[in-house]
């Protein structure tokens, strides 16, 4: 561990990626070997379906890690662009799901082609003070104005709420991921990649633990209409798992293990609650599936994957910036 500390920041980050991709290669090999062995027997439908889902998740992990790496090596410009594209695709999916009306056209243009690029421009230039207030203050004022000028009073509040929510989750939330990457903390310069890695690990741990726990524990669901597997106990298990992962990873953060655990628990808890909210939203939009099992809208299922991150990132960012460091 002491050897690691003496390395330069760049080689530490490089090591992080070597470990990350090494794990992915290992995981892919395991899946490959298992699929080769399984193909000798005839598979029933359920396990085939499981295999299919596993492969898709693995592909998503590869994609996510590659984007993360590209974002890191290409510096502020690349990071901003990469996450900006993700934001764009997520917002596109979101707007497809919530039915907008004809009168929303101008507001949507504003959201896609003004608010989104501007927010990422602010991240890219590290103008963090304006970055945190730009969407809640300026964009949330501009969108209803554009809607009002379009002159359609039908379900005005509802339509605006939909667009503003989309911006909040897909643009504001997700833009905090590159913000972490570019954040310069005193005594912790150029190590933003560790923070983002920490955040992703914490949310992933919480999600995974919650998923596994919900299979084992059959509790009464808290919100049956929205998610049959969600209960407080399951959520707490996710929180604890995130905290454990956070404490284990404390050495990549600027804080001690206790604080790292708290930070990770906050991120993990927000992420899983965010996932619940997104489920509610999809149910409202009339989409009964989760994770793109059958695609009615042609939605690619990106939103499902980034939703926990969208919710966790702003809270985590705020936490890191104001309370813990």
């Amino acid at each position, binding site marked *: 561990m002491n050897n690691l500390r003496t390395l330069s920041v760049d080689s530490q980050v490089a090591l992080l990626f070597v470990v990350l991709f090494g794990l992915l290669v290992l995981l892919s090999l395991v899946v490959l070997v298992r699929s080769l062995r399984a193909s000798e027997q005839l598979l029933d439908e359920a396990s085939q379906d499981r295999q299919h889902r596993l492969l898709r998740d693995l592909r998503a992990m590869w994609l996510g890690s590659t984007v993360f790496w590209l974002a890191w090596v290409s510096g502020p410009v690349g990071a901003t662009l990469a996450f900006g594209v993700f934001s*764009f695709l997520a917002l596109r999916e979101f707007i497809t799901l919530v039915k907008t009306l*004809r009168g929303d056209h101008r507001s949507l*243009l504003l959201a*896609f082609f003004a608010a989104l690029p501007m927010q990422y421009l602010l991240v890219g230039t590290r103008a963090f003070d304006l970055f945190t207030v730009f969407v809640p203050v300026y964009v949330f004022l501009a969108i209803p104005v554009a809607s009002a000028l379009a002159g359609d009073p039908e379900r005005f509040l509802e339509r605006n709420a939909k667009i503003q929510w989309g911006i909040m989750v897909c643009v504001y939330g997700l833009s905090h991921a590159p913000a972490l990457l570019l954040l310069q903390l005193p005594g912790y310069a150029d190590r933003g990649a560790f923070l983002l890695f920490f955040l992703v690990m914490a949310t992933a741990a919480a999600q995974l633990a919650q998923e596994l726990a919900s299979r084992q524990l059959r509790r009464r669901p808290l919100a049956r209409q929205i998610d049959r597997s969600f209960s407080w106990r399951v959520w707490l298990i996710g929180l604890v798992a995130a905290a454990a992962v956070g404490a284990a990873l404390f050495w990549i953060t600027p804080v001690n293990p206790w604080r790292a655990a708290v930070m990770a628990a906050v991120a993990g808890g927000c992420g899983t609650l965010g996932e619940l909210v997104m489920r509610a939203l999809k149910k409202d939009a*009339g989409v*009964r599936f989760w994770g793109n099992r059958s695609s*009615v809208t*042609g939605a*690619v299922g990106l939103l499902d994957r980034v939703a926990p991150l969208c919710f966790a990132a702003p809270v985590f960012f705020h936490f890191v910036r104001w309370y813990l460091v």
Partner: protein
Amino acid sequence: MSRADLMGLLLAFLARLITGAQGHWKGCPPKAEQRIYFANHQSHFDWVLIWAALPRELRARTRPIAARDYWTATPFRTWLTTAVFNAVYVARTRTDDQEDPLQPLAQALEGGDSLVIFPEGTRSNRGAPQAFKSGLYHLAEQFPGVQLIPAWIDNVQRVMPKGEVVPVPILCTVTFGTPIHLQHGEDKRVFLERARAAVLAARPGRA
């Protein structure tokens, strides 16, 4: 690679970026056979969307129909429709010399190309398509060997409502349904109604 090819790739990329342009082959696989695709018509985007949803190998031999007076009015439009899309030109107004308006389409089909047509004849903003014009029937009668594939383009009216110029990014799908055939001795009206029902049947199910 020529400029026209690049323009084609760029347009397909833009269509995918803005709408996803996902092709769902529900009733038939994407195959390099001679086909007539017929779809509902809601926006100027429809042709580009179908074209982008096709696999790249099929794009070169699948041609749109373009109104000659509009699409040959400027050099750029001519280049776009000729070099990039290889469109089949038709006259919108019937000329007096008794020429069959379907003649250029028949020529293209004789040459082995596939066509995309919008049998409503005009864009409609309602949910269900309007009654089909008879062109489809005559083509089906003349070319019994060509597959007729219904397609439903979903969501595109949200991308660019009438009167707007900038498209909003919203995911669209093109669903290709089961091929239909002209029955022996089938009445024109019955066939067109059946074709319209086939397009509606390709519509993705909703709760």
